[in-house]
């Protein structure tokens, strides 16, 4: 099994607000992320695909194809967007790193047909990230 990782960066704005909670609770739970005008991040996305290299091409999947999938599914949807309002998959969800990573997983998994999607890691800042993977497959660096 070989793990192949492709990295892309996008910039987007968001805010955290749950309309089911009071203004005070929103401020308490979400702190400055509750600013109604929103704020932004430079996100870094690492997508890892696992598979056996094709005996003819030597590739798990064609990187160009992965790049096109990421462009179509992630960049077009999220780059330079206001995540709360412009990404329908996030409607009704708080656009935390956890939830965005999950949405990206759901978008990518059915599109990756050579190899299988192993891990989505989304960095909101260099010191904060969320990982998504399927139970039983282990994290990237400790394959189960």
């Amino acid at each position: 099994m070989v793990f192949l990782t492709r990295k892309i960066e996008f910039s987007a704005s968001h805010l955290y607000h749950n309309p089911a909670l009071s203004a005070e609770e929103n401020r308490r739970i979400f702190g400055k992320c509750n600013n109604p005008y929103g704020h932004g991040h430079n996100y870094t996305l690492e997508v890892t695909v696992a598979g056996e290299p094709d005996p003819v091409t030597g590739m798990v999947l064609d990187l160009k194809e992965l790049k096109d999938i990421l462009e179509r599914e992630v960049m077009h949807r999220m780059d330079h967007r206001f995540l709360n309002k412009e990404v329908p998959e996030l409607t009704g969800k708080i656009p935390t790193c956890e939830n965005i990573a999950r949405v990206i997983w759901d978008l990518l998994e059915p599109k990756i047909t050579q190899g299988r999607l192993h891990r989505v890691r989304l960095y909101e800042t260099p010191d904060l990230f969320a990982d998504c993977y399927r139970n039983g497959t282990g994290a990237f660096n400790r394959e189960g």
Partner: protein
Amino acid sequence: MAGALKTELGRRYRFAASHRLHSDELSENENWRVYGKCNNPFGHGHNYVVELRVSGDVNPATGMIANLADLDAFVKREVLEPFDHKSLNEEVAAFRRIVPTTENLCMEIYRRLKTFPHAKLESVRIEETGNNSFEYAGERGQG
């Protein structure tokens, strides 16, 4: 297809501390042979980066596995305050008995953080320098 989708939250913290690698069970020569310049009796220091991963259900009301403010406060109290700008050998009780290699540091920090009440600690990875890193994920080494 493998199992259910799992989400983890990763967070990086920094502290600076000094240490000396020296074992009382080894002779002076053996200590020098094993630890080299890290055995310098006056110690030396590093800027450590601690990377944690925690897992749990994403709370639908908050979109979070754990509130970062809670995690940050816990790590600050349990690790950063007792370790930052300290001598690990002299000022952290665990390292009176064991050598403060980064392997042992990973295990000590894991021990301190596994009681975090709001999510399950998956692993502690420490970068001792930009070129060395160590990771400990509990006894079984898998989440």
